[in-house]
């Protein structure tokens, strides 16, 4: 039932503004892929183009072997969950889910008893049994989200598209729904593409993450691969916290300042470089890159110390244990040294 989704060289402009600049993406049958990017990066445009809600200027979209160009919205058989759900305000939950089945041409429309059975099964699947007669205005955000999902699944879609599925929910509901969606995907196995601007959500939920920036795909890969091997400084900074040091790479060895040699460095750069370092890969030390403490605050179980260094752009954030002797000495204004264990190097 689920098919591969292939996007080839998709181009889209809004007036003079290029929203998509030759985007290509392959989603395998049953795969769950996140489109991650800041606002204005083109991720929602890409999703809407796949659904057929936006006209594109170039490239093509395939569902399995079928070219979707010129295919009507109905014939695409796309399950689409809108950011604000777009539930039919004048229909109750049951009628919302039944809409796609009732809307079929007479010959293909299942009999009423079957529609009832299938809608009930879907409402069970999304754990909304008993809320059939509620109207959208009488449902919570999380419940609306699940009605929208059940409605999209009712037409047995070939591809499932979700636009910021958790964007309008509060943090706790978000976490629960995320886990629940992951389970649901494992059970139903729909080819799924979802849009998010939340890197944590993308990394936790998706089989693979596609990172968009300014209408270009910067990198596509498994969450681990993207985190460990970011293809660009943008990807590195967008997929997690990163400190930016200024350094130099010579013969595969990176140096910060005059003397500090990095034990590990990744990236095919020679000469001046931006060295991006995850907070976990930098620590207070008795020697290394010099700096001055500019702030310290609680961060979960530990401390986060903010350091200004002439060799870094912006504030360097270092995690430390509260009982660490060096951390205790690191009062505001105190001179400290940093040990950098690992960095991703990109052209400066």
């Amino acid at each position: 039932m689920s098919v591969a989704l292939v996007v080839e060289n998709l181009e889209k402009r809004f007036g003079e503004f290029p929203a998509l600049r030759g985007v290509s993406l392959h989603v395998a049958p049953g795969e769950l892929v996140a489109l991650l990017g800041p606002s204005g990066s083109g991720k929602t445009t890409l999703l809407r183009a796949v659904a057929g809600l936006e006209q594109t200027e170039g490239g093509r979209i395939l569902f399995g072997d079928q070219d979707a160009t010129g295919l009507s919205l109905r014939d695409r058989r796309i399950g689409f969950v809108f950011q604000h759900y777009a539930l039919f305000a004048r229909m109750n939950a049951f009628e919302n889910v039944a809409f796609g089945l009732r809307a079929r041409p007479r010959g293909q429309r299942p009999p009423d008893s079957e529609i009832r059975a299938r809608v009930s099964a879907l409402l069970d699947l999304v754990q909304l049994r008993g809320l059939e007669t509620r109207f959208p205005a009488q449902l919570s955000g999380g419940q609306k989200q699940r009605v929208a999902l059940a409605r999209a699944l009712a037409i047995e879609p070939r591809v499932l598209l979700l636009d910021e599925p958790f964007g309008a929910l509060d943090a706790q509901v978000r976490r629960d729904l995320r886990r629940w969606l992951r389970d649901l995907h494992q059970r139903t196995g729909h080819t799924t593409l979802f849009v998010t601007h939340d890197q944590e959500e993308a990394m936790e939920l998706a089989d693979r993450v596609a990172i968009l920036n300014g209408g270009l795909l910067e990198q596509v890969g498994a969450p681990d691969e993207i985190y460990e091997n970011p293809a660009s400084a943008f990807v590195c900074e967008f997929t997690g916290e990163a400190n930016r040091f200024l350094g130099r790479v010579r013969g595969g060895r990176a140096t910060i300042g005059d003397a500090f040699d990095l034990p590990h460095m990744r990236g095919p750069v020679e000469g001046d470089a931006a060295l991006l370092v995850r907070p976990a890969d930098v620590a207070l030390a008795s020697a290394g890159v010099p700096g001055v403490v500019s702030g310290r605050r609680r961060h979960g179980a530990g401390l986060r110390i903010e350091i200004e260094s002439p060799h870094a752009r912006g504030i360097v954030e270092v995690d430390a244990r509260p009982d660490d002797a060096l951390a205790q000495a690191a009062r505001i204004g105190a001179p400290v040294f940093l040990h950098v264990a690992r960095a991703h190097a990109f052209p400066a």
Partner: protein
Amino acid sequence: MRGADAGLRERPAARALLLVLAFAFLALFLAAPLAIVFVEALRPGLGAYLAHLAEPDARAAMRLTLTVAAICVPINVIVGLAGAWAIARFRFRGRNLLVTLVDLPFSVSPVIAGLVYVLLFGAQGYFGPWLKAQGIDVIFALPGIVLATLFVTFPFVARELIPHMETIGSSEEEAALLLGASPWRMFFAIVLPNVKWSLLYGVLLCNARAMGEFGAVAVVSGRIRGETTTMPLHVEILYNEYMGAASFATASLLALLALVTLAAKAGVEWRFAKSIAAQAPAGSE
């Protein structure tokens, strides 16, 4: 701001004065004329009142007015829905021009609207002779009255629908199409139920104006008694002939229509506010 507000509230005399002024104005200029219409109409007694309404010319005027409204209101509903939907959903060249055109009848004197049709379709007009040759009468006949009425009533439906459709947004419609609905089903199952209250509101206003229009119709009708006089024209003709009671009898029907429209409008507004309130949480989240 708050200080000024509190200051005003501390002066009950000022408030009372404003209220008295407002009510006195409304009573003098709105309620009193309305009451006079009924008083004058019924002065000769109920029997005479009914006899005035039963006169052939009066009945012909009623029939014509109902016919004109029965043609104009459905046309305005269809064209208004289509125009409002196009304006609310699409960005196209000439969209602003279309918005301005929708409002044009509000800014043009109805007499001008009538004259324009005489110039176009009258005996000496651009298309008049040709139409005459085909045996079609537009001016001094029903088609002319319908055209003039359409012109002055066009904004009512579209004007009500455009802001409402823009507030609702298009994602419900997109969802319906993606779920496999045909455009017709999308329209009847989603669009129409969503805008039904503002549509009804527009229809009421449109109908009241279609039945009550005087200026534009007066120019194109020719006032042929029993044939091209609508109720407002009939009222004026009788009044000019010093048949006050008969004139007020027909006028009382128009006044009654105004009162019914007002009541229906209040009812629709009340239902509309309730349905907006029911929709609001869904839209705001």
